């Protein structure tokens, strides 16, 4: 595909006539930008690797952390990220088809494939928003600190909370009231503050209520930070797990449990894990977002016929390079964040 010129004397080579790479200026500069941007991501992922190697506590495992699907609930390890990866690969394919159509000066083809690419990009962004929201809100169980000081993540089926029945009146609720709204949120909030003791919850107005909750099933505690009695990665199952979990949760002590994630703490593993998750997937997501915006701008140019008049669709090729790069980075993020 590269153009070849017969005479290669130094005058033509250095006179600015011939590019040594036989590539246009714009395309080459896009490549150089991508080289530097790739080095930024390289630095981030290597920093992640460094931290993962020096941390003492167990690092979260992808298929344990990311096992949910929208509308379907838990028990689908890695399927959602796989879907996201597939969406991004497909949008990369539609982009390369747009570039190919451009090489044939097929304006309609370029428009069609670029619209498909943009839709794929929005799908990916939406998926990432869901994933972030899920990551931030966390599971129903959270991460629990056991009596011996070890920390464990919790797997299993969380028995639904039916209601809170007020036993001691506060400023808002009377004795005998049955509260049925916003139960899980209230429960989590009180658990973090240490306002649950022996199955009784102290509500924000000072009233005390009995928690009416269904039984949990198949509970497994996986130790992620070793304490006095439990080694790293130990698994505690069944009745024993339930006993230890509720001993801590219902101890009436604050900060025994962590739900979801923020920059300070998260229920999946070490603090740095959450920070890297937000930074690396966030930085990549920002790239996807910019890519979609750039694609839209170029699409407008295609529709307006700007590039057709110019005689070539190189702008589509350039934005395509950027879009493929975003896909390329995701391939690495997928492996090092989710798989390994």
């Amino acid at each position, binding site marked *: *595909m*590269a*153009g070849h010129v017969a005479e290669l004397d130094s005058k033509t080579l250095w006179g*600015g*006539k*011939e590019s*040594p*790479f*036989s*590539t*246009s200026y714009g395309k*080459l500069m896009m*490549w150089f930008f991508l*080289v530097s941007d*790739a*080095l930024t991501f*390289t*630095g981030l992922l*290597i*920093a992640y*690797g*460094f*931290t*993962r*190697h*020096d*941390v*003492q506590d167990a690092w979260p495992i992808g*298929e344990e952390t990311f096992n949910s699907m929208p509308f379907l609930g838990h028990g689908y*390890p*890695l*399927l959602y990220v*796989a879907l996201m990866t*597939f969406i991004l*690969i*497909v949008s*990369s*394919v539609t*982009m*390369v088809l747009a570039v*190919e*159509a451009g*090489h*044939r000066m097929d304006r309609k083809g370029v428009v069609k494939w670029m619209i498909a690419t943009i839709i794929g990009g929005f799908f990916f962004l939406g998926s990432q928003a869901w994933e972030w929201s899920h990551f931030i809100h966390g599971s129903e169980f959270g991460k629990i600190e056991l009596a011996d000081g070890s920390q464990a993540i919790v797997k299993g089926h969380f028995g639904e909370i039916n209601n809170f029945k007020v036993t001691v009146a506060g400023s808002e609720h009377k004795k005998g009231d049955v509260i049925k709204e916003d139960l899980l949120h209230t429960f989590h909030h009180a658990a973090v503050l240490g306002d649950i003791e022996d199955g009784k919850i102290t509500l924000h107005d000072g009233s005390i209520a009995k928690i009416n909750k269904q039984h949990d099933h198949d509970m497994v505690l996986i130790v992620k930070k070793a304490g006095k009695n439990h080694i790293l*990665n130990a698994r505690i199952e069944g009745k024993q797990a339930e006993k230890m979990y509720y001993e801590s949760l219902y101890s009436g002590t604050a900060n025994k449990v962590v739900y979801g994630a923020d920059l300070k703490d998260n229920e999946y593993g070490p603090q740095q894990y959450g920070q890297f998750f937000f930074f690396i997937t966030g930085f990549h997501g920002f790239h996807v977002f910019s890519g979609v915006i750039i694609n839209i701008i170029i699409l407008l140019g295609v529709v307006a016929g700007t590039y057709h008049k110019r*005689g*070539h669709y*190189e702008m589509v*090729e350039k934005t*395509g390079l950027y879009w*493929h790069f975003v*896909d*390329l980075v995701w*391939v*690495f993020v*997928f*492996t090092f964040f*989710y*798989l*390994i």
Partner: protein
Amino acid sequence: MERDDLIEYSLHTHHSEEKGKEIRKKIIFVTILLTAVTILEVGLGAFIKQSNAIWPFVKWSFVILTLFKAGYIVMVFMHLGDERKWMRYVILLPYFIFVLYLIFIALWEGLAVGHAWETYGF
């Protein structure tokens, strides 16, 4: 002043209808390949636990499969395979030289720092 002796490289990438068909065939082939590799990776990740004895093997196959996928994206989708040899080198050599070294030094250092914390405390 407008120069008329400059080469418009952008026009060199144009191709015919038949060539286009050929290229599209290749694109479809690569799509299927990348999808298959992703499915394989997820299957391995979902069914082989990290406590499994063959996990180190699985881990390294993830790395190799990732580089395999990356190679196809860069060479086919980004058309780097169609560029001149020295352009390929200019773009790829920095990674082969610096990044491999950085990975080695950072991971090794990370382990050392971890051991130091384990031994001497905070």
